[in-house]
C-alpha cells in the first residue's frame, strides 16, 4: 500500500528486497530536490540575494528538522556529511586518533566501522578490541565490560542495527557500561532510522552517525550527531570555504560548529531532500512502520523455514530489516543471479562485513532486506523464485 508514494515502483516491476543497501525515495523527496535545482538553485551561507537566502534557510531548516527528529539539544550538534562512512572517518580523524588509546568495536561491524581504525595503525589487541557475539549473533555485554575494564581510555564504536543480519544491538546498555568506565561512544546508525525511532538524548550517545540514502533520502548525504560537550574537542576534518571566520596569510580562525566542520559547498539538494524523507517517515509514523515490518519479517522467516537445507545464522529475536541465509551445498552468488533473472533483487555477498563472514566460515550470504513498503506479495514472489533457483542448481 505504501508503494504508491514511490515513483520507482511505477517504473519497475521487479521485487526490491535490497533496502539495507539503499532505499527508494518518495515523490516528495524528488519533488523538493527538483524545486531546488529548477527554481532557486544558489549556494548557501555566502551570497545575499533572495534565492541564496532561500537555499540557506531551507538547508538550515533541514538541520533543525533533523535535530528535532533525533531529539538533539542544539543545531550545532548536527553536522552534515556525505554519509555514515564520512561521519565515522571524520570522528576517527578529528577526535579519536589523538585522544584514545583503544577503540572497541564488535564482531558484527561493517567495513566502514573497521577500516578507519586500521588506517590509524590500530590492529587487533594493539589499539583495537573486538566484542564477541554469542551463537545467535547477540552482543556479549559481559565480554564488553571485561574489555572496558582492561582498557581505560577507550572509544567505543558500535552499530545500532546490523546490515547483514538485522540484529539490533543493546545500545542503551552499551552506552551505560561505556560511561561507567569513562569511555566515549559512537553509534553507527546507518540502518536504524529506516526502521525505528532514534532519540539521542534517551540513548545518551556521544556521537550518532546517520545515513540519508538508507533512510529514503538522497545518496551523498548524511550527518553526524555530536554531543555538545565534545564539540570543542573536535578538530576540523577538512577546511576551506564556509568554515572560517577570518583568514590572512598568517592564520585562519574558524566559525563555530556546525559550520567549521562543513567545508566547501555542501550537498544542498541532498540535505533538503533528506529532511523531506524524514517528514515522510514522520507522517507514516514509526509505530506503523514497526508493525508492518515486524509482521513481514516473521512471515519471511516462516516461509524460509519451509525450504529444505536452509541455513540461518541467527534467531529472529531483536531483529528487523535484514535476514541472511544460505542453502546447503549451493553458492549464494549463483542463487542471487538466478533470482535477478526472475526480477527479484536481493544482495548476495559479504555485505561489506567480511570479518563476521570469516568468523562464520562462509564467503557470504543471501540477504533479504525489507522496508515498510514491501508486502507479503513481494515475499511470496521471492519464495517462488528462490525455490525455482534451487531446483535449477540442484539438478
Amino acid at each position, binding site marked *: 500500500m505504501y508503494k504508491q508514494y514511490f515513483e520507482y515502483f511505477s517504473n519497475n516491476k521487479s521485487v526490491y528486497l535490497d533496502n539495507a543497501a539503499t532505499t527508494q525515495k518518495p515523490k516528495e523527496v524528488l519533488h523538493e530536490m527538483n524545486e531546488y535545482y529548477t527554481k532557486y538553485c544558489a549556494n548557501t551561507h555566502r551570497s545575499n540575494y533572495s534565492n541564496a537566502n532561500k537555499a540557506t534557510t531551507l538547508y538550515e531548516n533541514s538541520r533543525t528538522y533533523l535535530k528535532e527528529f533525533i531529539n538533539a539539544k542544539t543545531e550545532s550538534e548536527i553536522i552534515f556529511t556525505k554519509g555514515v562512512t564520512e561521519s565515522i572517518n571524520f570522528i576517527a580523524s578529528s577526535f579519536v586518533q589523538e585522544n584514545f588509546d583503544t577503540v572497541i568495536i564488535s564482531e558484527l561491524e561493517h567495513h566502514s566501522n573497521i577500516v578507519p581504525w586500521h588506517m590509524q595503525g590500530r590492529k587487533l589487541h594493539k589499539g583495537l578490541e573486538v566484542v564477541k557475539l554469542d551463537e545467535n549473533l547477540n552482543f556479549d555485554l559481559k565480554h564488553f565490560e571485561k574489555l572496558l575494564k582492561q582498557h581505560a581510555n577507550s572509544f567505543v564504536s558500535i552499530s545500532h542495527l546490523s546490515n547483514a543480519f538485522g540484529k539490533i544491538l543493546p545500545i542503551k546498555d552499551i552506552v551505560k557500561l561505556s560511561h561507567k568506565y569513562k569511555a566515549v561512544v559512537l553509534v553507527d546508525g546507518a540502518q536504524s532510522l529506516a526502521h525505528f525511532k532514534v532519540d539521542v538524548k534517551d540513548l545518551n550517545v556521544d556521537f550518532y552517525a546517520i545515513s540519508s540514502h538508507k533512510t529514503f533520502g538522497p545518496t551523498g548525504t548524511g550527518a553526524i550527531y555530536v554531543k555538545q560537550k565534545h564539540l570543542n574537542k573536535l578538530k576540523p576534518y577538512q577546511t576551506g570555504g564556509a568554515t572560517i571566520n577570518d583568514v590572512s596569510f598568517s592564520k585562519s580562525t574558524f566559525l563555530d560548529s556546525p559550520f567549521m566542520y562543513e567545508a566547501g559547498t555542501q550537498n544542498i539538494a541532498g540535505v533538503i531532500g533528506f529532511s523531506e524523507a524524514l517528514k515522510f517517515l514522520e507522517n507514516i509514523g514509526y509505530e506503523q512502520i514497526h508493525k508492518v515490518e515486524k509482521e513481514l519479517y516473521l512471515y519471511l522467516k516462516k516461509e524460509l523455514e519451509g525450504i529444505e537445507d536452509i541455513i540461518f545464522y541467527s534467531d529472529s529475536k531483536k531483529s528487523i530489516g535484514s535476514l541472511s541465509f544460505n542453502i546447503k551445498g549451493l553458492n549464494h*552468488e549463483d542463487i542471487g*543471479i538466478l533470482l535477478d533473472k526472475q526480477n527479484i533483487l536481493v544482495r548476495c555477498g559479504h555485505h561489506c562485513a567480511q570479518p563476521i563472514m570469516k568468523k562464520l566460515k562462509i*564467503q557470504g550470504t543471501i540477504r533479504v532486506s525489507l522496508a515498510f513498503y514491501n508486502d507479503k506479495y513481494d515475499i511470496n514472489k521471492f519464495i517462488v523464485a528462490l525455490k525455482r533457483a534451487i531446483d*535449477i*542448481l540442484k*539438478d
Partner: protein
Amino acid sequence: MGIDQKLNQIVEDLGLFEDDLEKYEYIIDLGKQLKKLDICHERDENLVQGCSSKVWLICEQNKGKLFFHANSNAQIVKGLVYILIKLFSNLTPREILNINLDILQNLGLSEIITPNRQSGVIGMIKRIKEYAQALNKVGKSCNHNN
C-alpha cells in the same frame, strides 16, 4: 575445430535461448559436464585472480597443444569455465596468444553475466594466456603445478 568455429558454435548455442533464465539453466548444465578436477589441484596457487567465486585452473601440454582443466565452487561459474576451456583447449600456445581478449564481447556473455563475473572471465583468460606465454617461451610441459 579452429577458434572461430568454436566461438561461432558457442554463440549459436547460447543464441537458442531467448529467456535469460533458460540461458543460465543451459550454462549450469554445461558446468555439470565439466571433467572432475583432482582435489589436489584445488590449491591457492591454482586460483584465478579476479573471480568473486573460487576458480582453480591447471594446464597440461600434449603434442604441442594445451589442455585446460578447472573447477569452481559456484555452478554458474562452472558453466562459464566449461565454455572457456572448450574454447581454449587443444590449441598451441601461439594460437592462444593470438586470441584477442575482446572474445568476451564476441561470446555475448557481457549481456548476461554480472560485472564481477566478467572480471572473473577476463581473469581466467589472462591466466590461460599466462600459461601459453610461459610455454611458448620454454616449450615444455606446464604441468608444474601438479
